[in-house]
């Protein structure tokens, strides 16, 4: 069996959203009071909910307000640390993030990104800094993350990035989404079910 072609994430192209700062934890990404919800719906509105607002509750100039429509998030060190909540990468994803480039990522956060098919690529501090400058200078400038070859293209340059091998494999083979993976065997599933004495014929 091979992965589903539609699920393969070989490259992500688009524009960037620069988010400066080290140790941005999942509580900032999505405050705990929004975890009570019984659905994933509406999570995009909760991404950086507090950071995006001023004291009166009005939207401020946070990058998640200013860079709507961008899809490559550029962060610094230890992004996604803190609680393991799966809601964090989901909120980013729903806001529109399709890939993250950063100096480093918290392990569980990176794992959660993987299960959403969202690459988390590690780049040197000076690369991240120059990329953030580049995006701020021209928000509409194109960026390309080549997942398969672990390369980042921007400003006419190509630099190396590092993607965890199991994440890279899962993305390029299109096997990160367990739902799709499991459902691709529906015929075999039905066969197994039919062979079980306690499953009624259907």
């Amino acid at each position, binding site marked *: 069996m*091979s992965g589903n072609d539609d699920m393969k994430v070989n490259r992500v192209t688009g524009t960037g959203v620069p988010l400066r700062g080290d140790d941005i934890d999942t509580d900032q990404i999505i405050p705990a009071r929004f975890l*009570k919800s*019984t659905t994933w719906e509406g999570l995009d509105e909760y991404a950086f909910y507090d950071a995006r607002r001023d004291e009166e509750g009005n939207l401020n100039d946070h990058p998640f307000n200013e860079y709507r429509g961008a899809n490559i998030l550029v962060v610094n060190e230890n992004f996604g640390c803190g609680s393991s909540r799966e809601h964090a990468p989901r909120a980013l994803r729903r806001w529109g993030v399709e890939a993250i480039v950063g100096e480093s990522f918290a392990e569980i956060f990176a794992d959660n990104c993987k299960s959403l098919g969202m690459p988390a690529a590690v780049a040197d501090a000076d690369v991240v800094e120059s990329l953030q400058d580049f995006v701020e200078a021209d928000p509409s400038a194109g960026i390309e993350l080549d997942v398969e070859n672990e390369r980042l293209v921007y400003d006419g340059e190509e630099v190396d990035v590092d993607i965890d091998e199991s994440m890279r494999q899962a993305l390029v083979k299109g*096997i990160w989404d367990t739902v799709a993976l*499991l459902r691709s065997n529906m015929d075999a*599933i039905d066969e197994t079910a039919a062979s079980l004495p306690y499953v009624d014929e259907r």
Partner: protein
Amino acid sequence: MSSGTLYDKVWDRHKVGELPNGQDQLFVGLHLIHEVTSPQPFSELRERGIEVPYPERNVATVDHIVPTRSEGRDRPLEDEAAEGMLTALERNTAESGITFYGLDSDKQGIAHVVAPELGLTQPGMTVVCGDSHTATHGAFGAFAMGIGTSQVRDVLASQTIAADKADVRRVEVSGTLGDGVYSKDVILKIIRDLGVDGGVGYVYEYGGSAIEQLDMEGRLAVCNMSIEGGARAGYINPDETTYEFLRGREYVPEGEAFEERKEYWESIRTDPDAEYDDVVEIDADDLEPMVTWGTNPGQAVGVGEPVPAPADLPEDERDAARNAQAHTGVTPGETMEGYDVDVAFIGTCTNGRVSDFREAAAVVEGRQVADGVRALAVPGSMTVKEKLEADGVDEIFEDAGFEWREAGCSMCLAMNDDSLHGDERCASSSNRNYIGRQGSKDGRTILMSPAMVAAAAVEGAVTDVRDFDGVGGGR
């Protein structure tokens, strides 16, 4: 690697194939759903436009968040978050064509109590639920384990999970249980001896004379606490006790079909020449009623045995023991007998079944709950409640001063309004004595059998149930 065990056979029968990531894909024979871990998975399926392919192999109930006072069960529930979860489950199951035993059903209850009593759980099945105590169902000779929220989604979407095979350890319990000694004592002893993480990486196969003598409800209590011993699953090979229990239950076939089904059940029993990855032996002949003195289920002693001094324990357990004793306020060198209790709680998926309440009722009958003790009897399901009420067992409890409640998880984890307050000490028939588990960060839980809880309730202190007349046991 094990071979020829029930676990191996059930695994093979349910294996759909190998996944490119190296894991096996397993068909799920029974998926139990409750309100806490299912809302997001259903929501994700809806967004992706995926329909549940095998709705008839999924059954839902509501247990964790439900109020257990009858007047608190009117809709909408007072707690908005609880109401939200319940409403979501009603909608999700209705839209997917999944049977739901809700608050308006006389079969509602804790998933791990409801499925066995309806005959949903059967030998040779794979059973999963987004709840760690799913191991309970292994009592029937099923492979049953708890799964995470994303796996709940996987099961709803495909009726399968991606899984890695574990090793099998045979836990051979020899001997005969004496009066006043129950299956709860057996499993507390196993966890004490093998450690709370002794089972990591293993599935436990419980066997031996002391296990075979247990009735189904006793077996359920043993398998229930596999997870407290670190094992993700535990099971007991099915035998005549299992088959007789199943006969006539709602989801079990009758007549000819029953006999055919039984052939399958027999065929998945562990072979006489099966190979295990590990075997341990435990002698139950001199087993006493067990009580915990600490803040994990392995920190347990016989009721007549002194609480160990941290310095006498293996080095890696000393710090934990010191912290635990600081929290529970027990003195090493003394037995647990005589420690006052403020609360007595009988119920849960470990010990909230008919025979548990009968054993406890035999102790409280004609006696009174001690002054100042709050005593709660919370049946594990509405079916359990109804059966007991038909025999007047509710009156025995109420006459003694117990509160007689509706079914739910209740004070096991205090997600509803049943909770310990301050540093109350609670004699509890539940499965976890972790700090904060029963709703108060200073609360102190002592795990024990339901009969022992009943004895503690009338005595106002931890006491040896064997000193009471009319005590049963051996189950």
